[in-house]
């Protein structure tokens, strides 16, 4: 029987509450931007969730990379659980980033995508990788050989990150950034920064809670699978 730790539930509750607060503060409290300088001033508030989602997808992709490397080198169950949770959460948060970013881009600059933007394209690449791994895990029988191939594809995907960095840098030389979706750093109003911090903390708490629960569930599912195999043998299977 799987037991979800109380701390995970607490983290989810805190994170969800924080998220609600972020949205409320973002819409009601955060200041307006100068309408003469922004084409769609209301849309800027997307960043209060977009940027924290980018941060957590970065954490999730890191988990996926670490798990892929761990399985590739040592084949431990713990590494495989990192691959499982990392790909699920990478997909979840990655989709959030690569949808909310272009939505804001369309509103503000009339252009949904910028092939020269390093971060946006890297997130898209890693989200595609996460989607591939999630689909492969669901469609393939769970054997060591499948896990080996998934780990190899995972590592391939991560090798593509520096290649993407070079590629976007080269492309940017001829196509200087039309859209600067990701540069939210310069000269931010303190109130905007404060709301973004609330968003960061909330999403991070949610992420940790999801990770703990996901790990427990995958561990329990693996145990159930072992039990099912034992039942197969009792019934004269194999």
């Amino acid at each position, binding site marked *: 029987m799987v037991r979800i730790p109380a701390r995970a539930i607490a983290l989810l509750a805190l994170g969800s509450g924080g998220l609600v607060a972020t949205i409320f503060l973002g819409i009601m409290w955060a200041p307006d931007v100068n309408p003469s300088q922004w084409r769609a001033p209301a849309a800027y508030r997307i960043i209060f969730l977009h940027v924290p989602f980018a941060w957590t997808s970065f954490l999730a992709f890191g988990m996926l990379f670490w798990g892929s490397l761990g399985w590739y080198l040592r084949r431990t169950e713990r590494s495989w659980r990192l691959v499982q949770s990392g790909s699920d959460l990478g997909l979840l948060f990655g989709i959030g980033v690569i949808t909310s970013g272009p939505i804001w881009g369309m509103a503000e600059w009339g252009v949904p995508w910028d092939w020269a933007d390093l971060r946006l394209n890297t997130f898209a690449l890693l989200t*595609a990788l996460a989607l591939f791994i999630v*689909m492969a895990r669901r469609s393939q029988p769970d*054997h060591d050989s499948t896990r080996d191939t998934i780990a190899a594809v995972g590592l391939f995907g991560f090798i593509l990150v520096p290649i993407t960095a070079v590629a976007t840098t080269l492309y940017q030389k001829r196509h200087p950034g039309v859209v600067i979706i990701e540069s939210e750093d310069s000269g931010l109003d303190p109130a905007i920064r404060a709301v973004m911090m609330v968003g960061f903390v909330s999403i991070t708490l949610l992420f940790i809670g999801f990770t703990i629960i996901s790990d427990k569930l995958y561990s329990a599912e693996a145990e159930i699978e072992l039990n099912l195999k034992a039942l197969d043998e009792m019934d004269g299977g194999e």
Partner: protein
Amino acid sequence: MKGPSAVGGHVSYPVLRIKGATVLRGSRTVMEDIDLDVMCGEMLCLTGPNGSGKSTLLETLAGLHAPRSGEVVVPLPNQESIPIRDSRGRRTPVPGLSIALQTDGACLDETVLERLKTASMVAGKSLTDETISAAMEKWALSHRSEDRLAVLSQGLRKRVSILAAILPAIQSSEPRIVLLDEPSEGLDAASRDLLHESIFSLREKGHSVVIATHDDAIIEISDRTVEISSSTISLTGPNHSVDDPPFRDATPVGGAISALGRWILALEMRNPVDTVQRIVPALLALFLLRSIGLDAISDGAPSSLAFYILAPALIAILVRPALIDRLKERRSGDWWRAHLGRSIRPLSSIVGSPWILPIPLTYLSFIVLSNGSSDIDPSAYAWLWLPALSMLDIGAAATAIHMLVSGFERSTAVAASLMMAILIWPFLLLVDATTEILYQGMYFDIGFDTPLGLIICSSLIAASVWGAAVIIPDE
């Protein structure tokens, strides 16, 4: 359990060794902590009930399965060895190997003659037509020499598969290792007699023969028998003294590489599935572009025309190669892997790329779409082949990605295109290069803004992706 042994009273040496190997198939442990030596000149039979692991053991000897632990090696003097396959990912083809898998191990579009010639080339033997004809005559295959394996009965295909394995050894003066998986299965009585005779003759010539079989007649004439059950083995046969193995080189793969190239080309020329699969969507895209009106294209940014000119070629090179299905058919890919080891992916991703399509497609698109636009530099026509040629690098990278992804058991259930997105940038750089050529003409300065510089950058990025896709072993 290791049994040092010799053959027929003579001292012998081990040619192939399994050390402490545990092998899984799927989630099942088929062999656990197995030790086994194959001695030079011996005939070793692998026996056991169906599903006991005879084929797995045979294929492990050929380096086809990565052991969970332990290794397969070719022993050398002074305690050294050539690692054939181990749990750390090292992989080398077995020197002097010939193998007949339980399935045909061949694509069914091959002809009988082609199959035998390919097997000989892979073994490093270029046999004359007369030699091959004589062998086909003996095995009652001459009347089918030009027929594709697809039209033959299972029994005939079995004969071809066995002959392909034993022919290089029969013609060879150096000791070879011949692995046969259930060779008697599906053969008629006359063929079975011929098989027994051939196996015996191989042993007499000093070759090592390992056979997974239920055939009592073969088991009776074997030197040693390995009984497999419950993940372990037990050996029966005489124990004699063992000599030091002689020095051997790792197998040169030059013959196998050129055989693979010819194989890929011959199959495609006989049944151009790959070419058709690529051309059809490319031409559809081209004619759809033409039908939306040339004004829409020419009124756009200058790079639009370049993009549309290169787009059909891009579509063609991203299509999943037919080579992957050919390698999966009847486990022909496993047969090639046994002879080429890890180099199969880099080689086949290059040779299996669509070499002939990008340049003609690009010129066709140019003719159809450029509509004699007055802005285009008159010399552009002469240089479009350059960016089109660079599309081959993108094609090789795409093929390598397809092959990496096809390593899954259910490879039809995964979406390879998710991993292709990286190829957008080399393509966009080629679009920029083509734009420069179309509107400024070709010039040979090298810089980030010049056609040559952009093409080189595109090729380097595509080559990096190709390298990443072929370098990571997936098992």
